């Protein structure tokens, strides 16, 4: 029964990810990527990782993709398309890359299906709630949590410095 929900969402995500890679227009790619992020949030919620599902929507589909949209619209890429199409038009190279990756993927899937995992069991209701994840975050993982805040501050300063017009 649960597979009936899992498979359509997973197929939708894979299709949208392919659309991101294959679309000619970056705006369409970004739209498909937002759809994929929302699908993944669905998968996370379905896995009972509610906290991560909400974070996925807020951080990825909200913040990161809005930033992508801003940059795509800030840079006017219309006249640029002919230049970067030249190498992408090389169908032989792209095809060979795809075949190589499908080979690697086949091997990975082979290994995964050979492995003997226990049958999935029900998890307690507390799994993935803000309370339980927050408890782990502020006890065992409090140092990485603090370091992440420094990382985000550094990224913020770095982005401002890099995107500034001229350094005085």
């Amino acid at each position, binding site marked *: 029964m649960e597979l009936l929900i899992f498979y359509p969402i997973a197929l939708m995500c894979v299709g949208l990810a392919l659309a991101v890679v294959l679309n000619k227009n970056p705006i369409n790619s970004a739209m498909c990527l937002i759809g994929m992020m929302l699908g993944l949030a669905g998968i996370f919620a379905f896995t009972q990782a509610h906290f991560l599902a909400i974070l996925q929507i807020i951080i990825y589909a909200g913040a990161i993709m809005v930033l*992508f949209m801003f940059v795509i619209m800030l840079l006017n890429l219309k006249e640029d398309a002919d230049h970067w199409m030249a190498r992408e038009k090389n169908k032989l190279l792209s095809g060979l890359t795809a075949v190589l990756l499908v080979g690697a993927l086949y091997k990975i899937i082979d290994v995964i299906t050979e492995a003997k995992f226990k049958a999935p069991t029900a998890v307690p209701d507390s799994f993935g709630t803000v309370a339980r994840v927050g408890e782990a975050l502020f006890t065992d993982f409090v140092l990485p949590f603090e370091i992440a805040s420094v990382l985000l501050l550094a990224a913020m300063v770095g982005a401002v410095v890099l995107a500034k017009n001229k350094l005085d």
Partner: protein
Amino acid sequence: MVPLSHYLIFSAVLFTIGVLGVLVRRNAIVVFMSIEIMLNAVNISLIGFDRYFDQSDGQIFSFMVMCVAAAEVSVGLAIIISLFRNKPTVNLDEFNILKG
């Protein structure tokens, strides 16, 4: 209940699509989006394992992955903007001034 192998295969498929995008596309912004697909694919397998073992560690890891992704995107897009100022293109093949 969805078996763990389904999560892992789903994650592997998405990751491969991301690698394909990085290798095949030459538009810097689309390459960035493909990197985001790869990071998300890793999150799926982390959460799948987390549920399999009924722990919270994998969720903390994917939380950290999201932090790093946010930092990476803000800095990376700033780099793309400043590159665009020097040379009005986002074609990765044209940015080769660091090549000796």
